């Protein structure tokens, strides 16, 4: 946080000696409040008590953006979110950075910024920006959300000829003790974590707006340096976390289609023992939506996740005495969005799930032969300005 503030002040006053004070009318203020509800039948969804029904599912944010010079923008967004036992409505700095656009082909950012991963990572908390309530968790997981979300550091970006654009970021992942990654490992190790930090993250995004109007292709990913989680039972180190995603999107008028495919490699160890050794996760989804009227849009999606692409039937889980159904998740979803006004929306959504990845009930609670099919209902309303 101190480094972020220092970088912002340096950009404001060190690089731009002619910057002048400006009045409040030059600051844009925007905000949003989202409140949701989750209810599942047999299992709890991620970190929530959705089997009983839960309102612990919300996001709130407010941002301030100013452009004190023609090519320089400065902004900060404060945010609070809750999803079960993650977030807990703690107010955090969601992003805060300065952005200097030297030329169309080169801009420089410094501070805490969202990571350009996939089509939706940067806006994953912005309910008003999409049709569905829940993004495909195969590509945008809640468990390692903190790994994906932001970078505290520097970035270069720009647009190039023939519809190309790029962004590269380097810095560290701002990890928090209330994140899903920490909570999940605390549950698995039955302990309370003391500290979590990361060495570095390097991320990249390349996008091509093709000559076919509305069709874009993208390739993005990131590489994490060591992530260390300190607990009374020892230090768990994630020594490798590399993720790559290919994206395709087509938007024409009220119709949109998008699909993404991800490969993720992870290794971790604790007290010299290998917990994961180059495990490769494989995931993909496809979704489409159409707006039938100014006030109504419907979307359909199908998502698949294999935590270990070399074990798609869950055999390795069975060898550990865990039901094989933890080896995958397949999610068929139908989403509806009602735009009550330009500032207020309501969404209703259903997920038919097969496979238990994404549930947080301990395997010992499941019995020897748990049902592999389950259902999740989600509702959400959002106000934004």
């Amino acid at each position, binding site marked *: 946080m101190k480094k972020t503030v220092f970088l912002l002040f340096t950009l404001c006053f060190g690089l731009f000696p002619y910057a002048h004070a400006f009045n409040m009318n030059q600051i*844009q203020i*925007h905000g*949003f409040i989202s409140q949701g509800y989750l209810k599942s039948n047999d299992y709890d969804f991620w970190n929530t008590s959705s089997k009983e029904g839960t309102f612990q599912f919300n996001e709130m*944010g407010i*941002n301030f*953006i100013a*452009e004190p010079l*023609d*090519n320089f*923008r400065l*902004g900060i*967004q404060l945010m609070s979110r809750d999803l079960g036992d993650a977030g807990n409505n703690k107010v955090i700095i969601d*992003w805060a*950075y300065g*952005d200097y*656009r030297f*030329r*169309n082909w080169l801009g420089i950012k410094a501070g805490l*910024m*969202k990571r350009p991963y996939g089509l939706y990572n*940067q*806006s994953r*908390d*912005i309910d*008003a*920006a*999409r049709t569905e309530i829940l993004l495909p968790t195969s590509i945008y997981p809640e468990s390692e959300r903190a790994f994906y979300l932001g970078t505290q550091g520097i970035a270069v970006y720009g*647009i190039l000829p023939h*519809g190309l*654009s790029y962004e590269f970021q380097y810095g560290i992942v701002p990890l928090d003790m209330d994140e899903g990654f920490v909570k999940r490992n605390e549950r698995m190790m039955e302990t309370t974590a003391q500290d979590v930090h990361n060495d570095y993250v390097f991320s990249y995004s390349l996008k091509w*707006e093709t000559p076919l*109007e*509305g069709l874009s292709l993208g390739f993005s990913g990131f590489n994490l340096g060591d992530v260390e989680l300190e607990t009374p039972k020892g230090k768990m180190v994630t020594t490798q976390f590399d993720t790559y995603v290919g994206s395709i999107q087509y*938007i*024409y*008028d*009220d119709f*949109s289609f998008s699909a993404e495919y991800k490969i993720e490699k992870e290794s971790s160890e604790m007290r010299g023992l290998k917990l994961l050794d180059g495990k490769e996760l494989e995931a993909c989804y496809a979704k489409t939506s159409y*707006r039938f009227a*100014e006030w109504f*849009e419907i979307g359909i999606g199908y998502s698949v996740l294999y935590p270990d692409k070399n074990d798609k039937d869950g055999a390795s889980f069975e060898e550990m005495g865990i039901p094989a159904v933890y080896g995958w998740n397949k999610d068929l979803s139908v989403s509806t969005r009602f*735009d009550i006004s*330009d500032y207020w929306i309501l969404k209703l959504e259903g997920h038919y799930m097969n496979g238990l990845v994404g549930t947080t009930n301990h395997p010992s609670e499941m019995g020897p032969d748990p049902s592999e099919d389950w259902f999740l209902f989600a509702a959400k309303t959002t106000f*934004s300005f």
Partner: protein
Amino acid sequence: MKQFTVGLLTIIAFSSPAFADVIIIANKNVPENTLTREQLREIFLGKRVQWSNHDKIHVATVKDDDGVYEIFLKQYLNKSHAKWKSYWKRMVFTGRGVPPKTIISEAEAIAYIAETKGAVGYISSEGIQDESEPVVKIIKIK
């Protein structure tokens, strides 16, 4: 001269195939006389922020009651109002941009673009004023 100007603008307005209803206009200091559709899209989506002389691009959208806003979105950006709105919410709530200035009448749009260096916007062909010395320039889209 007045009749020639009106006639010329009428010819320009009605000779461009497909997009005769909406004309792209810019401040007279803008160096470009033509833009590709890709460049125009990049400008209105906040991705292209400088003209070729490195002046900042100030974008204005007209949201009047005559429907030129919807025609512009559909014909030049292939977006509905809902998609346009969602796009700018994504940009604003990730700090990557601020929405274009919204102006509620074509007359105000012409005045704003005429007096703002680097400004660009759109109006209907009927919105072009009958003047001997046009206060804005028309950008041709190729």
